[in-house]
């Protein structure tokens, strides 16, 4: 018998057993067909359930294997079933990040070319310098917490979703840093070190720093992901970004800062979707759902308490811009609604008490007085 050589090595040049097996066939796609994200992501990080015949072959000194389900208090019947709704893999991640970087650079270049920073209201410049400057450290702290967390998930799908979350947060912290440095150089007298000083010492920012440091110090990686996306972001992150900067800036002659900030809001929508999907899956788990709910509820109590304290302490910021177009009370109400809605989505009680009427009243009255003065 002689072996026959085939002229072409292209698909379809010969028909033989397996010659048409042209899909990864070792996992069940979430939909009818595997998405590209699933093909390049699912099962790249294996485990003894899928498919390590010889188990993990190196352990830590205390016997913990390379990956362990014990790295979170949450339990899951099938960690492999999670798929990130944003479906990011390397190509889509770079495309999106690069588009954001380009968008921000265009906005900033155009604003600076038009001399916009020089026309920012002076009181607003102080807000940018001291408080947007302080907030960039919060974003960085969350980014570093997530960068740590992406080591610990039991599957590739969980870890990659946390990795891209970290990438978005760290990019945004840098966006703010470089944006402030650039517009600051146009304004003159802009103190680039003031933001960090406020972050470290200003009483307004200390509960916020405390909340972020608690997230960084959490040893359970899913507690970190939960606290970032389901607690801090809606209660403090969005409150400051959307509820304050994006609503107020235009009235202070500042159209560029909201554009920079808007990227983080869009990032968050995607990271929130990923996080909601993951935690909803864990709460629906037939065997562990109730225990998971108890754990998430306790995390919510802990981090929610810190985040509310941080949010309330930021209240004076709403009084700083010369032109008042938003009130803290309204912004906080939206944050309260948002976190409650997120809680309902995954299945925990995230209803927070409303602000005491006197505080809402004070904030509204204070805004009204300043508005009148501005007119």
């Amino acid at each position: 018998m002689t072996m026959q050589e085939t002229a072409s090595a292209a698909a379809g040049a010969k028909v033989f057993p397996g010659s048409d097996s042209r899909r990864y066939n070792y996992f069940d796609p979430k939909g009818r067909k595997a998405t590209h994200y699933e093909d390049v992501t699912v099962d790249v990080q294996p485990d003894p359930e899928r498919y390590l015949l010889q188990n993990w072959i190196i352990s830590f000194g205390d016997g913990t294997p390379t990956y362990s389900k014990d790295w979170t208090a949450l339990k899951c019947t099938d960690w492999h079933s999670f798929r990130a709704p944003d479906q990011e893999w390397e190509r889509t991640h770079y495309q999106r990040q690069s588009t954001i970087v380009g968008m921000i650079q265009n906005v900033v270049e155009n604003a600076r070319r038009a001399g916009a920073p020089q026309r920012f209201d002076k009181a607003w410049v102080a807000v940018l310098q001291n408080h947007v400057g302080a907030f960039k450290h919060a974003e960085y702290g969350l980014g570093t917490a997530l960068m740590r967390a992406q080591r610990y998930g039991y599957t590739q799908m969980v870890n990659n979703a946390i990795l891209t979350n970290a990438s978005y947060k760290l990019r945004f912290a840098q966006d703010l840093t470089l944006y402030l440095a650039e517009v600051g150089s146009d304004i003159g007298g802009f103190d680039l070190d003031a933001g960090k000083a406020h972050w470290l010492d200003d009483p307004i920012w200390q509960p916020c720093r405390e909340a972020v440091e608690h997230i960084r110090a959490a040893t359970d990686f899913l507690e970190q992901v939960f606290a970032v996306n389901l607690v801090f972001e809606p209660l403090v992150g969005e409150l400051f970004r959307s509820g304050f900067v994006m609503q107020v800036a235009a009235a202070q002659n500042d159209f560029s800062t909201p554009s920079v900030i808007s990227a983080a809001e869009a990032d968050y929508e995607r990271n929130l979707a990923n996080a909601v999907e993951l935690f909803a899956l864990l709460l629906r788990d037939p065997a562990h759902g109730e225990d998971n709910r108890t754990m998430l509820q306790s995390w919510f109590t802990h981090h929610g308490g810190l985040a509310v304290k941080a949010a309330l302490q930021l209240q004076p910021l709403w009084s700083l811009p010369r032109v008042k177009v938003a009130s803290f009370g309204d912004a906080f109400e939206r944050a309260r609604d948002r976190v409650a809605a997120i809680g309902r989505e995954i299945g925990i009680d995230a209803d927070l008490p409303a602000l005491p009427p006197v505080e809402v009243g004070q904030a509204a009255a204070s805004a009204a007085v300043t508005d009148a003065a501005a007119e």
Partner: protein
Amino acid sequence: MADAILQARITNIEIMGRDDMPDGLTLNKITSQKGIGISEAARRVADLGWTPSYVKEAMSFPTDYKISKAPRDPMKQVLRSYFPMQEEKDNRVYGALDAALRGDMFRNVEPRWIEWMKLFLAIIPFPEISAARSMATLGQLAPGDDLRTGFTMQMIDEFRHSTIQMNLKKWYMENYIDPAGFDITEKAFGKCYATTIGRQFGEAFLTGDAITASNIYLQVVAETAFTNTLFVAMPSEAARNGDYALPTVFLSVQSDESRHIGNGHSMLMSVLKEPDNHLLLERDIRYSFWQNHMIVDAAIGTIIEYGTKHRDKNKESYAELWHRWIFEDYYRTYMLPLEKYGIKIHHDDVHEAFDSIVKKNYVHKIAQFFSAGWWANFWRIEAMTERDFEWFESKYPGWYDEFGVWWENYAKLSKPGSVPITFADTGYVYPHRCWSSLVPCVIREDFTIDEVDGELFTYASEVDRWTHKEAFAAEYQGRPTPAMGRFSGRRQWEEVYDGWDLADAIQDMGFVRPDGKTLIAQPHLSFEEKDMWTLDHVRGHTIRSPLLALREMTPQQRQAHVEEYRKGFKIRRV
């Protein structure tokens, strides 16, 4: 102020509209704004960090090293320039893949080469993503925040590498004549005796002492030294075999490695500052260099030299490539200078590694082993031919005497119905497996055994024995090393299937084509169904674990066995 700006803009527009634009004046220069310099940008970004005062972060990644000096970032990196650059690199990669299809690359590609990609690309995405995970470790361990952006970029780079390689593999699966083996890739990675060797490499990036794993093993040795053979030498061979996709993807991957090498060196310089670390650095550089040699040279050496059809005698052999990339570039210019910082470098290991390739035929013996167990693979290996023999003989004089008959036997026994070569009367002695590197102990004269915690183990060499018994232990030269990793799991594939029939083991691993009987692995490249082996062709032969057999021997029998094993064997013609 506003008037002045308006006037400036009008002037700019006028300049732009003139035909006689002054020399050196470009639209970009007119419209761009003065930005902050890269050093200032990197400094500002590094200043984002702070020392927590409300809650102290628990150090979640164990290490026995002391690190007090903050590593510096010599590359002054910021993310806003990184993302567009990476996107552009991606555009080129994906454009090239499209072009390769339009150019009908698969019509002319060498199947011998693409088959080995089933193995290589089953392994490599895991070490890549393990490297991404390990950046969590370095980001937390490194004092200060100067190098955080470098670690962040490396984390995202590795995510890139892992998914871009999965994409490449999918692309091969969709377009190459025989997709079997690509289609089960990640499942195969978990089952195969050879991919476990790759997993030893990848798990070593992120398990055990954090500095040992993520800085020394991954960055200082694997990335700085061995990615050159992995990601530079291998793509060259791919191109010689008509595969333009692998070079496109892997040279793009390699362009990220310089960043990782910079991260690793900076972190190493920080670790070096503490004299207490020097003993551990000596241990870890020694272990990492030797194990990288054992694993990477086994896999990549075999793929480059046995996966190619290109036999131009003017091209460099793997031994020559190794001398250039590892000996000259890495050992002489990176490892040796570490001595001036007081680190003991084991020169003898480097020379021994080179000798194992040049004088002891390490790569050839590994290729022989891969072919001896072809039925347990999920890729095809075809026999070497006269043309191959000539090239090997010219590059490695004496090659034919030792390996020629083996490959002639292999060709003879490649027809279904023949005895699988493992069980044929060739004189080949199925090798013991090294407990440290998991690579078979193919250099017979270097084989050694030892007991650890009262149990007997086998090793490919003295350094492998030292790695298991002394380096991966709770104490090193009298110093407690609680953070150091431990070897674990069912490390020897043969032990898992000891006593199994070949056909049952292959079926258990799932290395069977969709018809339920034809093997994915074949000892040839024929795509005719009649030439293909099925489960029935291999049934009736039993897998035995050499280690279990050795453990069952009396001390005298064992001594005799070891002495006999070290003598090696002579292949007989069948």
